[in-house]
């Protein structure tokens, strides 16, 4: 068995420039906590939002710096660890490589849009989507007292920043323990954010609790899998795992399959893959809508980043052991996600099932086992993320009596009265459906063709199922479009409230990127393609 630690204490080598993006986000989050404590209340909102946005933009600049590396220092590679002088055995906690930097950059940018939608106030003192007192009983005296007192929940911004911090580490970690801690760092804020919806509180509290309990349950799977894999390889570092499988300690072979699968269960839970998807619709529906959008885009990106690393770096040599399991999950995810989206009557649940189906499509790309597949998945995540943030942004604007109107029947005839909003939403629906000239088409084409090209017979089967399923989902999206443009509005019609510049900006950017990636996908495809090489 490989020793856990070297004989003598050795200090970790850290390339601080390479981890600068993460440090910036973490510091911004910590400063946010201080702001919460010391800044006067009426200024807090503005300070928090600008701090978060500036922090994220600075982090993005740092990501670009690391990736471009103008001074040719060579920031890319393994960092946060050391090579044992006596055994020449490397232990590094972080892998700064193409996929990691690509994911970090996109998570940070999508995070900016997410923060901007969360910041919507509609003229109030605090963010409109969040309740000032999360734990109070809905309708109770303490709730109304909080509202009267003008309490506000600006903690959501540091919490979101912490989540983004965890998301940035998640696809970057080079070992199972680090991955687990990052998983928890990104999840915990999300559990809390899900429970803070201002309206339909009970739904939100329930969602939060379910997400937390099931998240803990899935974390247990992840940990158990980690333990089994440690038992197998004697190390939790991806490099060691891969080597151990290649050289093959046959005595412990029985641990490999359950270990690998259970670790995947923990990650597949986060992307909402079937049969670990049950939380998705409830949480998507219950969480404050801007949080749902943020979660759908960024968590998915981070978790798929981690899945990619695990599949292509840590367990690449053990592929034959676990591929079948993930293939089953991918098929189930696509079929269940697309078929059940047909029966939905609530817009947020519909988008939740749509996100499940998309997770299945992305898994098909992961199972291509080729650099092309990695590039396609990276592209898909960005394209889907921006569309989905914009879509949920629009959902948060459609209102009735002050609260969001998410039942499908309430959306009838929206296109006749608010053609621009409905038009943008219809366009995003077309993107989810994968109609040409939207980013959705390019991304679906990318993952499916990668699967056909290098996934062998399995890949082809998966791609065919994927195409059938995306044909099914087209009905769902078309139904929404038909409802908005061809149905008559009910008497108590909903209204589209006028958002602030920030929300307008993020919806517009999300929609424009969806269009741009459909018409001129080249530059991002190229970038994703160049960023698709892992270091080990």
């Amino acid at each position, binding site marked *: *068995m490989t020793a856990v630690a070297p004989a003598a204490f050795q200090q970790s080598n850290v390339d601080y420039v390479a981890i600068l993006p993460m440090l910036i986000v973490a510091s911004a989050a910590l400063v946010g906590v201080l702001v919460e404590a010391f800044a006067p209340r009426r200024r807090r909102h503005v300070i928090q939002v600008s701090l978060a946005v500036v922090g994220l933009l600075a982090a993005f600049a740092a990501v670009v710096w690391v990736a471009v590396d103008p001074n040719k220092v060579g920031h890319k590679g393994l960092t946060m660890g050391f090579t044992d002088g006596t055994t020449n055995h490397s232990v590094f906690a972080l892998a700064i490589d193409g996929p990691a930097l690509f994911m970090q950059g996109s998570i940070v940018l999508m995070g900016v849009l997410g923060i901007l939608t969360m910041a919507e106030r509609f003229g109030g003192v605090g963010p409109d989507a969040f309740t000032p007192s999360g734990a109070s009983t809905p309708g109770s005296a303490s709730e109304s007292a909080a509202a009267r007192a003008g309490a506000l929940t600006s903690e959501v911004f540091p919490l979101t920043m912490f989540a983004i911090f965890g998301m940035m580490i998640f696809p970057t970690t080079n070992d199972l323990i680090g991955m687990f801690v990052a998983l928890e760092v990104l999840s915990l804020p999300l559990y809390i954010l899900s429970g803070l919806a201002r309206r339909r509180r009970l739904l939100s509290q329930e969602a939060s609790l379910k997400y937390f309990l099931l998240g803990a349950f899935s974390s247990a799977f992840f940990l158990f899998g980690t333990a089994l894999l440690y038992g197998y390889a004697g190390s939790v570092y991806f490099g060691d795992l891969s080597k151990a499988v290649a050289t093959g300690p046959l*005595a412990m072979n*029985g641990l490999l399959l359950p270990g690998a699968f259970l670790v995947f269960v923990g990650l597949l839970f986060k992307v909402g893959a079937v049969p670990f998807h049950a939380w998705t619709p409830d949480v998507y529906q219950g969480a404050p809508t801007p949080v749902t959008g943020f979660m759908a885009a960024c968590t998915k990106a981070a978790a798929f980043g981690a899945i990619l690393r695990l599949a292509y770096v840590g367990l690449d040599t053990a592929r034959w052991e676990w591929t079948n399991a993930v293939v089953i999950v991918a098929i189930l995810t696509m079929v269940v996600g697309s078929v059940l989206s047909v029966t939905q009557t609530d817009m947020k649940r519909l988008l939740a099932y749509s996100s499940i189906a998309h997770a299945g499509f992305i898994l098909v790309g992961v199972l291509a086992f080729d650099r092309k597949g990695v590039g396609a998945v990276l592209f898909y995540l960005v394209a889907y993320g921006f569309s989905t943030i914009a879509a949920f942004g629009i959902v948060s604007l459609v209102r009735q009596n002050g609260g969001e109107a998410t039942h499908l029947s309430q959306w009838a005839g929206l296109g006749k009265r608010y053609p621009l909003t409905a038009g943008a939403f219809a366009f995003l629906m077309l993107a989810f459906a994968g109609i040409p000239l939207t980013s959705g088409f390019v991304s679906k084409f990318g993952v499916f063709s990668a699967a056909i090209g290098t996934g062998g017979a399995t890949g082809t089967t998966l791609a065919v199922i994927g195409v059938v399923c995306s044909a099914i989902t087209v009905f769902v999206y078309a139904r929404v479009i038909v409802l908005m443009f061809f149905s008559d509005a009910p008497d108590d019609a909903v209204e589209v409230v006028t958002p602030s510049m920030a929300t307008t900006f993020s919806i517009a950017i999300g929609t424009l990127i969806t269009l741009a990636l459909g018409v001129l996908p080249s530059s991002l495809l190229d970038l994703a393609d160049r960023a698709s090489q892992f270091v080990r």
Partner: protein
Amino acid sequence: MTTRDLVFVVVGTITAVSALLAVTTRHVVHAALWLLVSLGSLAGCYLVLGQELVGLVQLLVYVGAIVVLVLFALMLTRAPIGPQSEISTPAWQRALAVVLGGATSALLAALLLPLLASAQVDLDRPETGTTQIAQAVFGTWVWPFELLSVLLLVALIGAFAVSRLVLHREGEAA
């Protein structure tokens, strides 16, 4: 069978049985107490395996802090502690849970038991002592270790954001 084996089997059985009882009892305080027993005897397992540090940490953190916290929470929130029929698990679900739990155990047993023969560790001279663990935590694992502090901070802020109650006092709420 050595004494060590015997003790391990006993402690292990206590852990498993009390864990089962913790999830099957309909009385929430009982559940907390069974949890205490289960976590405590797990610390015993670690001790038998020669890992004093882990055993003590287990005892301190889980038994000393977490379960006590659970009990405090029960007392402070004045939550109903008796069995409640309307939210209790229906029989078919219990049956299904038994089947699934049994299946999981069987599956794991089928996977792990064959490996018993090849897994030999000399418990009298454990490879990883307290020194090694300390070196690992502050050397190799310093990054996740630091991250955990962030995690705790997040939990703190989260608890604050969720639970803040503005009672009857106007003015600064936070």
